[in-house]
């Protein structure tokens, strides 16, 4: 057995990392194709404000992060509906709200624990966090599989989906809440500043090589797992921060994929 797997904390890191690597692109593929890539950033920052609020007021920080993220996600959806042609304004506004609130509230946080929410603590997972991620993974995958074709329809053409009798409002509302919960919980594990990258980078990479929607989803998950496993191995052997290493691995693989695609085009 590899030396790395002699430690329970590393085994937990791999289990939780891979579970999050499976669910984040499921959310990410819908978010990216609906041109809302920056929603991950916005919700992660608001989650951070929620964590700070939890630590200040003595509430479980994960719970307060989830609550803050759900309110922010629903607000984004409402702002987007009000100004549909400039939908990206909604995520920019909410990112500002998150940064502002997090900056103010963090000034009142006495615990040093707050920093671990910025870049995560993948190698210091508690049993509670492990169970929480397993439960989240089951919920996200179940919803995603059940609504796979409906989400595809709404993502491709929301107006026609409505006309086809699909309850678009209810489904996008439920998906928005699921996105918020996923980001808030994943933020605790991989870090608020890392989670949005995990939603977008695997999907962006997959879109360069896939030949269908179904392939885009499958390749996104495979790329995401590849990023996490490679990132964790490199971080262990090179003594780097795991969250940041995972993201940089993702960026490097995306750049290699883009370059390969462009070279193939010119040949």
């Amino acid at each position, binding site marked *: 057995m590899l030396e790395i797997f002699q430690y329970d904390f590393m085994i937990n890191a791999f289990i939780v990392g891979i579970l999050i690597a499976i669910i984040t692109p499921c959310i990410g593929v819908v978010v990216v*194709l609906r*041109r809302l890539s920056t929603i991950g950033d916005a919700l992660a920052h608001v989650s951070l404000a929620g964590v700070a609020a939890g630590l200040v007021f003595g509430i479980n920080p994960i719970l307060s992060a989830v609550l803050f993220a759900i309110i922010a996600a629903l607000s984004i959806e409402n702002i987007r509906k009000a100004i549909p042609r400039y939908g990206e304004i909604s995520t920019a506004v909410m990112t500002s709200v998150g940064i502002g609130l997090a900056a103010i509230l963090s000034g009142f946080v006495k615990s040093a624990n707050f920093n671990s929410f910025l870049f995560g603590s993948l190698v210091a997972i508690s049993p509670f966090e492990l169970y929480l991620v397993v439960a989240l993974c089951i919920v996200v995958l179940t919803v995603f599989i*059940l*609504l796979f*074709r*409906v989400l*595809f*329809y709404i993502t*491709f*053409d929301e*107006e*026609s989906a*409505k*006309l*086809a*009798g*699909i309850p678009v409002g209810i*489904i996008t509302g439920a998906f928005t809440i699921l996105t918020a919960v996923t980001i808030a919980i994943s933020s605790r594990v991989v870090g608020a500043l890392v989670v949005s990258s995990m939603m977008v980078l695997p999907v962006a990479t997959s*879109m360069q090589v*896939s*030949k*269908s*929607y*179904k*392939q*885009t989803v499958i390749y996104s998950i495979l790329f995401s797992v590849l990023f996490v496993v490679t990132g964790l191995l490199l971080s262990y052997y090179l003594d780097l921060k795991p969250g940041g290493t995972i993201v940089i691995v993702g960026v490097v693989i995306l750049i290699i994929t883009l370059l390969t695609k462009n070279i193939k085009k010119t040949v």
Partner: protein
Amino acid sequence: MSAIDVQNLSFSYKGNPVFKDISFKVEKGDFVGVIGPNGSGKSTLVKLLLKILTPENGQIKILGEDVNKFTGWSQVGYVSQKANSFNDDFPATVKEIVGINLQANTGIFKRKPADYDERVYAALKSVGMQDYQNKLIGKLSGGQQQRVFIARVLIGEPKIMFLDEPTVGIDSKSDEALHCLLSRLNEQLGITIIMVTHDIAAITVHANKLLCFGGDDLFVHDVGGAVTDEFLSKIYGYNVKHDCSSCEYMIQLKADE
């Protein structure tokens, strides 16, 4: 029973009346062209008929039922302007795009039907796109994409099909091919077609009825008789000269100097 029956319909946008008290009927099997200048209310009318917008006053009946109580939306298809409906980089195949419309009939939590592949193939064959099933939608030309979107509607076996300027951004050859395809669907399958368009030359050849928005009025024109340049000039508010005599349908719009 008419396919569509509109009585005394009025609609305003942000306090500005778009149209007032308009009434008309579309019979089953009609091919109706909706024409008029930009901003005259053509697309708004379609959105009202599809219940995307709510009228101020008036009544709309679809297949004999009040639009507010109408439940047979699976019998109604809609093809929007291509440019507004998706981005060219969307990673989906033609087969996936056409197949999603089966969802409405099979229920959102149910598995796809056993004859899914056959139905997708048949819908694509009816628009001549059966050889493009595994192509990415963004790799097709504008005219081909619109054919795929028509196939997506056809798979639901619609009785009424709405099209909102489907020929925007496509070349004249594909434009004429699309009109011929719609005529064939109208004649052979009996689908009632309501099409918003600026292509007056083509629509006067293929449609049997025109709904013409001009000023605050709506004129219903049977295309059986010739549509005169004088009438079109009144609708558009400037001199219109149209020529349907050649294969390449031409329209010349000359602003009144």
